[in-house]
Structures are given as structure tokens and as C-alpha cells.
């Protein structure tokens, strides 16, 4: 259902133009990578504060409130450039095992943020000044560090897909996970 739509998307004029462009694609890709420093850089700084490994003398709520606008702005640029990169080669990305893993890890990272804000962060006034936050907050910090590291690694490996649908034969499991249509 999604595949025919993406196949049509791949044939649109702009998708082909972006895919074949000499400058546009590298520029979008470079922006996507360099914005990592703003998005993941600030997100991981907050994670390190949560785990008590950086900025210990700055209140946790301060770190979060001051870094969050940067994290959000970085995420907006990453999402915009990421959508463009996906649009340049929609089918190749959709059937890419690393792209799929990356998306799942991003959902999990989002879930982790949601749980953190619904849970221990509500009582930040009780623990925010302590150099070492409580266990639940530290766990959220470590989970976030692991998940975003995974997202970055999978993101980089999208370009090296060793399990591309064009490379056959592959194990059935790989083809199933990648959504390859094998005759």
C-alpha cells in the first residue's frame, strides 16, 4: 500500500531532480549532519546532566529550559532536511533495514522523552539542584544516550546498505525486515 505510493513519489520531477543534483543533495545532507551538533549535541548534554556526568553545579531544570529551544530548533532542521533526503530516494530508504531501525529507535527515544516528562520530571523541583539526579532520571538519561547513539549509527549506515533489495539472495528474515519484494 505504501510501496506503490512511494514508487510514484520517486518518479516525481522534484524527487529525481534532488536525487541527481550536483550541489543540492550534498548541501541538504551536510546540513542534516552538521545540525546533529545542535540537536544531538544539546540533547546529549542534558542526558549527561541527568546522569550526573556534566554540568553538575547547574540546576537540571535550568539546563533543560535553556537547552531545549536549541534542541527543538535543531530537530526542526533535522526533520526538514531528513524529509528532503527521504524524498530524494523514497523507495531505497523505505526498503533500507538501517532506515527502518533508525525510525523505530526514534519512536523509542520519543517515548522515553514522554515517560520522563510524565514521570520523574514533574518533581524536578525536589531533585533539580542535586548534582546526581534520582535513579529514574538517570535511567531516562542513559536510555536517551543509547537510543540517540543508535539513531546516529543507523543514520550513517543507511548510505552503506549491505542488505539492499537489489543484492540477492539474502536471508528471508532480512528480506522480510527490509520489505523487499522478491520474485
Amino acid at each position, binding site marked *: 500500500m505504501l510501496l506503490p505510493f512511494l514508487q510514484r513519489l520517486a518518479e516525481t520531477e522534484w524527487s529525481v531532480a534532488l536525487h541527481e543534483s550536483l550541489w543540492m543533495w550534498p548541501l541538504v545532507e*551536510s546540513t542534516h549532519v*552538521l545540525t546533529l*551538533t545542535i540537536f544531538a549535541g*544539546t540533547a546529549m548534554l542534558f542526558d549527561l546532566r541527568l546522569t550526573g556526568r556534566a554540568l*553538575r553545579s*547547574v540546576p537540571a531544570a535550568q539546563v533543560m529550559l535553556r537547552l531545549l529551544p536549541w534542541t527543538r530548533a535543531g530537530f526542526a532542521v533535522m526533520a526538514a532536511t531528513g524529509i528532503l533526503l527521504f524524498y530524494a530516494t523514497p523507495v531505497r530508504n523505505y526498503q533500507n533495514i538501517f532506515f527502518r531501525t533508525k525510525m523505530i529507535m526514534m519512536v523509542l527515544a520519543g517515548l522515553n522523552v514522554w515517560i520522563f516528562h510524565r514521570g520523574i520530571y514533574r518533581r524536578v523541583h525536589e531533585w533539580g539542584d542535586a548534582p546526581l539526579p534520582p535513579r529514574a532520571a538517570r535511567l531516562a538519561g542513559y536510555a536517551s544516550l543509547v537510543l540517540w547513539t543508535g539513531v546516529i549509527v543507523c543514520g*550513517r549506515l543507511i548510505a552503506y546498505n549491505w542488505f539492499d533489495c537489489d543484492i540477492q539472495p539474502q536471508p528471508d528474515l532480512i528480506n522480510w525486515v527490509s520489505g523487499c519484494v522478491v520474485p
Partner: protein
Amino acid sequence: MLLPLFQWLEAAAPGEFIRTSLWLFPAIECVHLIGLVLLGGAVLLVDLRLLGVLLPNQPLRSVSDSGQRLLLWGVALMVVTGVPLFLSEAIKCYYSQAFWVKMTTLVPALLFALTVRRRVASGGEDTRSRAVRALTGAISLVLWFTVAAAGRWIGFS
């Protein structure tokens, strides 16, 4: 003059080892990227604080202590992974303009971070004027941005 050296480096065992592996180069690249995030995050944290944009009501020292430590971790990760990446494609780097832009900016960026910027950042608010602090942050940002952008461009050349 440098070309024979680069040819020799590329032919040497470490580069050869990485080239014969299917996944080693991408794997090292991934760690290089994590280093970029740490280094970039640390640079942004301290430079934006020096510019008075980020955490302006927190003491400079409490921000710069963590920032400098993270910066060193980031630099360490990037150098440890960057050298093998270079060794595996030294001749390509020799002919890449982006590589030379990166290297000639990396030296002043590192020197600046370890000398002027470190002193200004660890000196606290009282030792330097607002303008000096802001200028230090701005110079550092421009230097590191150039290093990162040129670094990404090596892959496209």
C-alpha cells in the same frame, strides 16, 4: 613533495587493512560522528555561553569546566577515528581541497581552544570584558564550523 608520503601512508598496513574490510570504514565513521556530536555539543555550550546567549545567568566557570572536559573527549574520539579514516584513503585526501581546508583550520581551532579560549572561559566573568568573551566565542564557532563543514565535504569530493 607530500604526495610520496601520502602514497606511502595509504599503502601501509593499517590503511590496507581497513580497505579490505567491508564494514570497518563505515564503523569507524560512526564513532567519528559520535565524536562530532560530543565535540560540537561542547563547543556550542561554551561558545554560546561566552556570547551570553545560553545559560546567561549561570556562572561561566560551572559551564566551561564541563565544556572543556567534553571537548577533550570529543577531540580524542575524533582524532583516534579520524587518523585511520585518513590512512585508508590518503591519496584521495591529498587531492581533496576540502581535506586541506579542514586540516589548515583544525590546527588554529585546536590551538585557540587550548590557549586563548580556555583562559577566557575558565577565568570567569570578572577577568575579561563582555566584548572579549563574545569575540572569543564567535572566533571559536567560525573555526569549528569550518572544520566540520569541510570535513563533511571530503566525503563528497
